[in-house]
């Protein structure tokens, strides 16, 4: 394979890896939205809390030797933290959103923003504002295969792909084949009618929050490992991008969320990789500005840019259906 192609492949694979993680977080947004029509703005913070709790647990048991943690204990800790995080998601629903089920959607959205602000600042109080380095088995980041001799695919990437496929299949089975899933789908079509048919709305919503939060916790850990650092603000960034991913795919649609995440991840990575080829608009103005280049700092905005462009042409998102209240 030519060098150019390999380079492209590397950017694309990196993008796919982060994109999958955005997609996993986006699933939480999209499921909650599908059922109670609420943008759970605090979802990013739930994701952040998942990371924080994992490392609190690891710190508790391993202390200063956290860097030497093995794979099995690491996975166990992440699992335990994810389950606690799932509980936290349910708690968030009960405390903040349940009382507002019949209130206007603006009230609920503002409450969600308030919860986001609250959780972020509580996290600063508990864990401090300093960025920390996540400890995990180092070999996870080493390449397992080298495509064409240069493009590495790490163990981490393979684990993410495999576990994402498994969890997506499981999620599909839960939503399509179980009683709970049927209830979820019923609620998302018409929650009042579903409740009249005997579906316990609160339980369904609770289960949704649980699933979304667990996914978010897993994805959050992986994002922190990719990034090499985490702090209380990591949730805000993941949350915003994941939300853009959910809207891009068509909010309320689970495969759409994953698709949106992958698209944003890949475009983001390609944009950063090929940024040097894009001339800076001001460099045409005068020789004074000829040194200007497009900064890689725009990475965080790529998700929104893709979202805005796509919404111009498909206001309901890629896989969304043209519902009454969606534009």
């Amino acid at each position, binding site marked *: 394979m030519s060098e150019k192609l390999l380079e492209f492949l590397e950017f694309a694979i990196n993008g796919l890896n982060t994109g999958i993680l955005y997609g996993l977080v986006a699933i939480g947004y999209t499921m909650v939205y599908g059922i109670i029509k609420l943008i759970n703005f605090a979802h990013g913070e739930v994701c952040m809390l998942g990371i924080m709790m994992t490392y609190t647990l690891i710190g508790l048991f391993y202390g200063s030797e956290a860097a030497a943690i093995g794979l099995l204990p690491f996975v166990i800790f992440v699992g335990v933290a994810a389950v606690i995080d799932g509980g936290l998601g349910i708690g968030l629903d009960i405390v903040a959103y349940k009382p*507002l089920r019949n209130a206007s959607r603006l009230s609920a959205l503002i409450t969600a923003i*308030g919860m986001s602000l609250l959780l972020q600042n509580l996290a600063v109080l508990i864990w401090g504002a300093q960025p920390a380095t996540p400890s995990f088995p180092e070999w996870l980041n080493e390449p397992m295969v080298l495509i064409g001799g240069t493009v590495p695919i790490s163990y981490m990437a393979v684990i993410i792909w495999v576990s994402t496929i498994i969890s997506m299949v499981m999620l599909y089975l839960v939503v399509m084949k179980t009683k709970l899933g049927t209830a979820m789908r019923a609620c998302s079509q018409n929650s009042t009618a579903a409740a009249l048919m005997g579906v316990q709305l609160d339980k369904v919503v609770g289960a949704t929050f649980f699933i979304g939060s667990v996914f978010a916790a897993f994805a959050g850990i992986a994002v922190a490992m990719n990034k090499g650092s985490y702090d209380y603000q990591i949730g805000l960034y993941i949350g915003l991008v994941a939300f853009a991913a959910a809207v891009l795919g068509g909010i309320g649609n689970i495969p759409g969320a994953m698709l949106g995440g992958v698209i944003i991840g890949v475009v983001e990575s390609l944009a950063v990789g090929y940024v040097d080829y894009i001339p800076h608009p*001001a460099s045409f103005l005068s020789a004074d500005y000829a*040194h200007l280049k497009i900064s890689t700092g725009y990475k965080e905005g790529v998700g929104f840019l893709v979202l805005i462009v796509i919404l111009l042409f498909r206001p309901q998102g890629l896989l969304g259906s043209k519902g009454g209240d*969606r534009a």
Partner: protein
Amino acid sequence: MSAAPKAAPVFAKKPGRVSETQSFLILLGVLMLVPFVTPAGLYGPALSIGSFTLIYLIAAQALNLQVGYTGLLNLGAVAFVGIGGYTAGILLAVPGGHKAAIYDVVALKDGQQCLSVSKDGSVRLWDIASGSQLRAYRVNRKSLKSMALSPDGKLVAAGGEGRRVFVWDFDSGELKNQSEEFQKPITALCFSADSQSLMVGHDDGLVQVLPVSSLSGKKLEGHYMPVRQLLRGSQPGQFYSVAEDRTVRLWDSLAGRQLKEWKNIKNGVRSMALFKDGERAILGLSSREAVLFNLKTSAVEHRYVTHGAAIEHVALSPDESQLLIGSRDKTTSLWTLGEPKLECKLEGHLEAVTAAVFSHSGKKILTCSTDRSVRLFSLKGEQEQILPVSTWALVAFYKRNLPSFSGNSRWMFFFLDPHFLAYMTVTPVAMLAAALMGLAIGVPTLRLRGDYFAIVTLGFAQIFQLIVRNEEWLTGGPSGLKGLPAIFSFAEGPDSIAFFRDTGHYFLGVFFFAITLLVMLRIRDSRMGRAFMAIRDDELAAQSNGIQLSRYKIYSFLISAMLAALAGIVQVSRVKIISPTDLLFWESILYLCCIVFGGLGSIKGAVFGAVLIGSLGEVMRQVLSNYPAVPAQARYIAFAVVLIVVMRYKPEGLFPAADEELERGTRERDRHKDVTPSLFTIGAKHGAA
């Protein structure tokens, strides 16, 4: 749904009560009186809080027009405030000179001219007295880090991130030669005494000796961290290098080998100045101190400690009696060497000082900084000249063409004040820029509703923040635009009138707030306002009654953006800085909080909410900073809790718009039914139907 457009309001004033208009006039009067009743000692903090609150008052009303009147949940309001502030800032202080950080400066002709090298990819020759640029040596698309002037004065060499060395002819400015691309960025340059070869230091510690004619040559290995400076030794062919790896090395460029090495210096060495006898040197360290280092005994003979951050540059005066230390803490210190004594600190730079040098006679000092300026100081520490960072072109224009006044009552002619007129000139332009941005956000989002609309506006605001953060050449990057003019010429400088120093920006705020209030009141009671509210209450019904949705939504964007821009201008006049930290996502949310507390769509409510959040927040911040035991987060946690509680128990806010309508004698309305405007129109009350 049956929300027809409202009938024209009938002002059925109840006897014995103040009308709404009267109460707002009273409010404005009280605001105007505040500076006169505040005790003089409290001017600074009180009016700082005052104008901070005014920013919120204006921004909240502007957002109220969108969220409260029209039902467009804009989560990116801060971008409108920001573009207003930035447009005003850029126009008031037009960026000039270097477009990015300056890394080194060389004094020429006894401090009458100088050369500066900048990250923007140019070396520039300046005439210092006039502040004009005589010549520029440029490389396209490559940032520069270091430069050197050949001892015979004929060549200028520079290099940097672009990994090439460029050599120009000093007089003609013509590029004579450039090297191959090296492995690593270039961090230091120095000519040999005969101007025939060039020593080059790299980011990875490699040092090279290149003949000027070919620009390719020997590699000298030894350093393993960035080389910070190279300087000629006392013997021909010898030169010293200092590096971050805590060593100083002496090399023989002719033989191409290392002669000597001084290890175990306490910290990374940033800079070195050599005494003529070649026995002692001054080393500037990354640990905030410079040391007098004996090269014979490797002993530290004295420490010069005064700076609060790493040392960037040290220089000796030509007679070796004085020492300059430039530091990252934005200051330069001048020392007498014999009996070490700190003479003075040269202050004025807004960012890290990257180099400080004496003129040939030793009577002037030149410093440069990442703030894009070169400053000329006297030996007493007085700043004599700044080479242009930005020019107050507008202010200067009015100064030239208008009569000037003096004396303590010159404030009475404030309407002829050049600063004030400059502000008044940029205000409409800033509003126009904001309106254009409103259009840019409004048109693509026309078809979006509810949550989709909210998230896209949020996205626009985030992208705007990224632009401001990354386009350093225009917006100053993360540190923002600094050194903007004050609102009145008599509010600034040594001969300012004390009263206006602290109150000028406040009066501007009150003036703009009055405009905002007027606009909001007039719109509410106009055809346009009723169209807005009809759209808010039910888009379909509004449309079927002949209201053009897209037209009125765009109006809402335009007017709201223009009003918000006023808040940005108040912000500029208040702190004379505008930076991306003013554009954080949470600011939009706080504006939203203001109107939600007060009650959506209610002017009175937004006033109340802004006073509460703006002043209380700022007071809490100032008071809390005195109690280190209370974490700074307490303020945000308090906001969050109040927000959640208000939504839970009084979601219609403290002054619901519906009440206001009742008071104004409009159509009776069932107060218990549907008080909160249902923003998300059709689907809102019917779930996913």
